[in-house]
């Protein structure tokens, strides 16, 4: 099966993703930033689908957009945003920060320009059909130990979040 109109969808999704990213950092209102971030996340999920990574796309939607962003919105509602709305949104060193980021971007550009041959144009023919099954085999095969460590990390995060957010233990 051949993907339809690949360039069109690529440019659409990447434009949405980058626009969303810009909105995240320029909006004064944190809820607007969160919505922009959701747009970015969903666009990136679309890009994953184009890269024949449907399982990662599904995980992205379920964990990021459905879980983490709800948590973010929840916390934004809990904390008082009225005050920060009236204050400066950016800190005093913003110009240094911009300069550093531009330098970083320039570094990336130079890498892309200098190393044309580093990235092959065509990749392995990955089968979309058995993607999930293969990821499952990797997770419970090669990466068994990492998988267990990840679950431990999540457990620690849960305990830490509960301990910190609870008023009295």
């Amino acid at each position, binding site marked *: *099966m*051949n993907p*339809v109109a690949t360039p069109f969808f690529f440019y659409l999704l990447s434009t949405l993703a980058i626009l969303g990213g810009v909105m995240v950092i320029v909006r004064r*209102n944190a*809820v*607007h930033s969160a*919505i922009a971030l*959701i747009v970015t996340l969903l666009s990136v999920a679309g890009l994953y689908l184009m890269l024949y990574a*449907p*399982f990662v*796309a*599904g*995980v992205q*939607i*379920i964990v990021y*957009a*459905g*879980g983490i*962003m*709800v*948590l973010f*919105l*929840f916390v*934004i*509602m809990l904390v008082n945003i009225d005050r920060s709305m009236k204050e400066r949104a950016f800190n005093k060193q913003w110009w240094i920060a911009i300069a550093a980021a531009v330098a970083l971007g320039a570094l990336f550009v130079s890498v892309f320009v200098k190393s044309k041959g580093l990235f092959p144009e065509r990749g392995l023919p990955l089968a*979309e*059909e*058995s*993607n*999930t*099954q293969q990821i499952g085999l990797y997770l419970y095969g090669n990466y068994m130990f990492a998988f267990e460590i990840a679950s431990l990390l999540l457990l620690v995060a849960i305990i830490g979040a509960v301990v910190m957010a609870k008023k009295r233990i």
Partner: protein
Amino acid sequence: MLEYIKSYLGSNLTPGSAGNMLWAFVYIALIFLGLSVAVIAMNWLERKILAHMQVRLGPMRVGPHGLLQPVADALKLLLKEDIMPAEADKLVFWLAPLIVVLAAFAVFTVVPFGPTHAVTDMNIGILFMLGVSSLGVLGIVMAGWASNSHYPLIGALRSSAQMVSYEVAMGLAVVSAVLMTSMNAQGTGTLSMIGIVQAQQQQGVWFIFKFFPLGFMAMGIFAIAMVAETNRAPFDLPEAESELTAGFHTEYSGFRWSLFFLAEYSAMIAVSSIAVTLWLGGWLRPFPNLLGGPLWDLVFSLAPGLSFLALGAMAAFNTFRMPRHSFFRVQTVGLALFAVLLAMIGVLMLAPGVRERVQDIFWFCFKVAVFMYLYIWYRGTFPRYRFDQLMRVGWKVLLPAGLGVLILTAIVGVLV
């Protein structure tokens, strides 16, 4: 052209998998239309069934037996003034109902109404469904926050906590069903919605009966969690009328409110379709093991047509029971026409060629309708949970039960 249509109808691929944009759009349009009709019908049915449970008649004035009441309501909602609170966050307030509706409708791209009747068949179908349906909570949270009012905010906080917690139990129940798909000779499971139903066909058992009572328990957990997920009674805390007036959509009116309504009912249908696909054999007809053979196949394939004929007969019967008074003449004629329409659909569905293709959709919709009836029944019977009790049920009952069922399913699957 005719050849093209015929060859497509004869093929056994879903339009998305076939890479066929035209048919995909046709299916999208059909599903959109069917869903709107289903929501309208559901509105009428809910009011009528609830009314009859509560010793009253329900809508009776607009059209025969209130059949046109949802249409009148829809018109009223469209014509109503669209109020936006002055202090509301305009953009988010405008965006929230759209997100809710989009999330509820996008789910239907992977719902398999039949082996070929789906917009597309994704490798990660069930994951996609869970993920997209969980996006609806974003819209609800945004609606509550953007209204800039206390009741909606509390409703939004309640709904976000509720939906996120019940998703966990729901996911565990789904995983145990997905695990059952892998119990074949090759040991390969699937996440594709069509693949899950086909696995039930191959294993010759609906997953609700598989490893009894494990499959049954998993479906029970899912059936409870899905009610909480769609914010329906007895878990309707985010819009608890007697506590929060209307919860997150207190400040919404007119068209925007009707979008929330539409989304709620589509989400109900969507989660019911997940349950039907995972445990009740999707489009498969009942009793293939007891009543097998070509004769019974024929009999069961007649069911859709016959049931429409029965509905038509019911409408015709009620036409004769209408009061013979000039005031009711228009309504009587309308009901008679409705009976004729139903009968014609029934006859069409009896035609050979049509009935083979239609019966899958019929059985699927029938099973979904059973779940819809359950929703209404719950609403008529149960009081509402309190927030802490709701959380307790989610985390302390459903989650451990889901984990236990999952582990037991895995153990039994390895042993058998």
